């Protein structure tokens, strides 16, 4: 078979190449099959076999784990043959290739966001597809991943003791991921950051910052009245009140 592949590679007979490529594809020799497909595709544009070939080529890329490529070729397929019965599968696979390409959360998530929007367009177009339930589940997973990424970045500012930055980032996180499981923890850390920032501030800024801490505390207990952090939060609240009292006394005297 290896010799046949080599022979096909050198042959100028497109029909022969096509036969060998199809045979290789059946036997899951993705790399070799795709190589032959590549050679004949320009010449076979507009022929009957072209449609099937492009679909198989995209799967060939997918099976070789070249997900960026496979996503692209599935996309070309469903755009070109929008009336093909395989268009639905191609559109899903184009999105699913991007899902496969999504790296761990500490790296750039461009393909994750792309995957989410591709899946979303798929679901909009084929809401009753057999792939729809899985598509929905994957979207949820990917969003969770984005939330974890944002959580780790926000938490790093806290670790680096950049209190102001941590507060801004925690607040942005709450807006971006209102349903995330991390919200309670970050809400408490925001309170703690605010308190620490106020404590470390110069005297002139202390009053404003402790007042802000108190506001943050009030919002915190409203939202999480049974929080596991309640005790620690109350302590910070108490201390902030004491500090404000001291400042008020100093002012009066």
């Amino acid at each position, binding site marked *: 078979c290896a010799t046949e592949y080599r022979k096909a590679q050198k042959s100028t007979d497109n029909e022969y190449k096509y036969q060998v490529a199809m045979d290789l594809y059946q036997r899951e020799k993705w790399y070799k099959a795709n190589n032959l497909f590549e050679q004949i595709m320009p*010449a076979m*544009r507009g022929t009957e076999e072209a449609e099937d070939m492009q679909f198989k080529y995209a799967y060939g890329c997918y099976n070789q784990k070249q997900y960026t490529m496979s996503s692209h070729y599935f996309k070309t397929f469903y755009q070109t043959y929008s009336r093909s019965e395989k268009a639905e599968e191609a559109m899903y696979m184009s999105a699913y290739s991007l899902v496969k390409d999504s790296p761990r959360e500490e790296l750039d998530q461009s393909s994750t966001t792309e995957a989410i929007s591709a899946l979303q367009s798929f679901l909009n177009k084929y809401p009753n597809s057999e792939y729809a339930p899985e598509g929905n589940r994957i979207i949820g997973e990917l969003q969770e991943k984005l939330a974890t990424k944002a959580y780790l970045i926000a938490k790093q500012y806290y670790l680096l003791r950049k209190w102001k*930055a941590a507060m801004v980032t925690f607040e*942005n996180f709450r807006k971006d991921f209102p349903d995330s499981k991390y919200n309670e923890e970050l809400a408490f850390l925001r309170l703690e950051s605010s308190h620490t920032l106020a404590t470390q501030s110069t005297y002139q800024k202390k009053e404003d910052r402790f007042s802000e801490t108190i506001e943050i505390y009030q919002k915190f207990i409203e939202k999480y009245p049974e929080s596991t952090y309640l005790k620690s939060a109350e302590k910070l609240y108490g201390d902030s009140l004491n500090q404000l009292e001291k400042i008020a006394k100093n002012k009066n005297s």
Partner: protein
Amino acid sequence: QEATAQFRMGVGRKIDNTIKLDYGNPKEYEIAEIDVQGIETLNKSALLSLTGLKVGDKVRIPGDDISNAIRKLWKHGIIGDVSILVNKLEDGQAFLTLELKERPRLTRFEFQGISKSQSKELGEKIKLIRGRVLTDAIVKNAELSIRDFYVDKGHLNVDVKTKQIEDTLVTSGVRLIFDVTKNNKVRIDKINVFGAEAIDDQTVKRKMKKTNENLRFKLPNRLASDLISLGKPENMKYFLTHQEGDGGSSVKDYLNENVKLNFFKSTKFIRTEYEEDLDKVITYYNSRGYRDAQIMEDSVYASGKDRINVDLHIEEGQKYYFRDVEWVGNFVYTDEIMNKILGVKKGDVYDMELINKKLNFNPNGPDVYGQYMDNGYLAFRCEPVEVKVEGDSIDVEMRIVEGAQFTINKVRLTGNDRTNDHVVYRELRTVPGDKFSRDMIIRTQRELSQLGYFDAETINPVPLPNMAAETVDIEWGVQERPSDQISLSGGWGGSFGFVGTVGLTFNNFSVKNIFDKSTYRPLPSGDGQKLSLNIQANGVQYQSYAIGFTEPWLGGRKPTSLNVSFNHSVQRIFPFNDFSFTNQIGFLKMWGASIGLGKRLTWPDDWFTISYALSMQTYEMENYTYSRLGFDTGTSTNFSFITTLSRNSVDNPMYPRTGSLVSTRLAMTPPYSLFNNKDYDNIDNEEKYRFVEFYKVNFDLKNYVQIWGDLVLETKAHFGHMGSYTNQVGVGPFERFEMGGSGLSGGNFMLGTDIVALRGYQDRSLIPYNPEEQIQGGTTFVKYTAELRYPLSLNPSATIYVHTFAEAGNNFNEVSSFDPFDVKRSAGVGARIFMPAFGLIGIDWGYGFDPTPTQPAGGPSGSQFHFTIGQQIR
């Protein structure tokens, strides 16, 4: 250019004339039939599937569906012409005909008359797609691209002919052959400048950076002919009776007319560059106060075979001066502060370029935008307006819109495909909640590039302001580049013969991910840790192993680096030509370990770092006759504490242009002799060196200055000294300085020594010897270097530069004989290439002007070649 597809309806031969399409009122029809006409090789149903039209579909006629179908078909580039005809409209049904014309398709193309490499380059440039339909326009465009390609190279008279040949392999296939006749390059003979008075012609020509006159040296000929003509009586009489008024300038003109020594400049004529150069001339005039200067006319004409002349007619206009500069709209900073930054005084030569430089970006000092931009005023705008022109004086108003103070809201990072977020985020100086600052962006950009994980030239910070909220998001775009290095080398190492070295450095290692297979590329990566391995061996006689690990942010909270390393090496002595273990006569085994902590400081400024290290090295000897220690069986231990304080503001690690590096290092062993009560005057060497005792100071200075463009001058000075705590102990043989050559440690595997390069002299040729103590090596050295560098390529995948250097240095056995001016001098040239996978590799040729102690004849050291690997500190 694409020919447009036609959408014809109700026009044509077979069409029933009764069909009337109402364009004002499209109706929906069901497609009853699609007939395809005019195809020869293509498949009917495949083509139909490409159009997206199908029998049974509902389409609007006239409407988008039909035109979309044409567009889709056309996009594939396989047909020459397409029209869709409506044959019949009946009972809400439409009968369509697809009329196609097949045209030959391009199967192959080739070039004649040009080199292979240019064919390849052109092949990519002309963008011909094989398998597509060939039209006249496509051929014409290809020809034009080929023409442009050669015109840009100076072949103004290039000739391109295209042949179309039927390709018998494929039906209706066509082969293209481009026959290119390049002809000679056209060069510029002379540039004639007319009307330049305030600025002389030569300066005008010099400002044209890329359009230059051809090399000419006609002086001897011209002098000869002038002398001959002077010999004629009437000329002689004229010469004797007429005194030239402006002697100096006529000599200059005379020389200029006949001599042009443009050895390294391009003298090709390239239209786009020529036009840029004309702008440069005007810019130069403007910068000298000639605000109205313009080029009235320019002409380019042939002056001979392959030669052209350029005539420029310049109108200089008047010279202007600044009068009053007024600031309008500044509330945050006073006029006084702004004037100080701008630095323009009444009566200065009018120069808008200078104002713009001081306004937007001034590399040598503060600028107006920076004053605001570094303090959050992101929307700051300042527009200089000439408000009054009176005689030769101009009043300028600086109109300012300060805008709001922006706070950083979100900071994003894209493009990190290998490196984890936290490794990058901890380095960013653009922090949420802070005021926007341009300076911090520039500094972060520099620091990210120094991490070495990203392509320095493409680090791209994008501020995305939100005007309503007065906040700004900052998006950092990076591109990963390979940061791991491998080095393989071999060389002759003294008595060991051939010694091979394998070195591996992983600069973006991750200990945490050792068990996570998905992060392997090829080793676990992404946490910014560094792991290096080094193995050196020549078989059983000599082996050395070293491993080192660095975590740059210990605990992830502060940039405190932790550094751990181990090394072990062994040398075995065998009887002559007998290398079996059982017969070994003696050995030297060394073990070493060190642990260090490095911290970034914020005081005196935040370019400083300090590091501490504990290091231990033991030497175990048995019958080791080469020891030079005065004993050959026993153990020595060198235990030292090292402190290094350094300040580094170098802008780019690969090719520094500005900045400096200052470093002081102090290494100390415990002062054993102060409390061990040993009688050092009557002690054998084994006892004396059981615990090595010394202190050592190093001082290193490097400075980079940009001379012109990318031409950079590096100046370096290095000094080192080691001594003993008490006189009785003396400075032992360990850790001494050895100087000369490339500075590589190759060939020296013995007692820890400090090797200093000195080009132009043989490797380790400057090692003083003290016959009284019988100890080799210097205790004090000094070295100065000046190196002028110019880059050939700043491409991050291969940074290449050439340099020329002058060096001087010397190594002294005793501090009493130290003299900073008694140095061995050398000069030479060299080149360096940096490739991410191999690190820095270089070659130097140097000439040493002074004799070395090892050359008894005492002549100069002479010509030497040096090969180097890696960045040398000294």
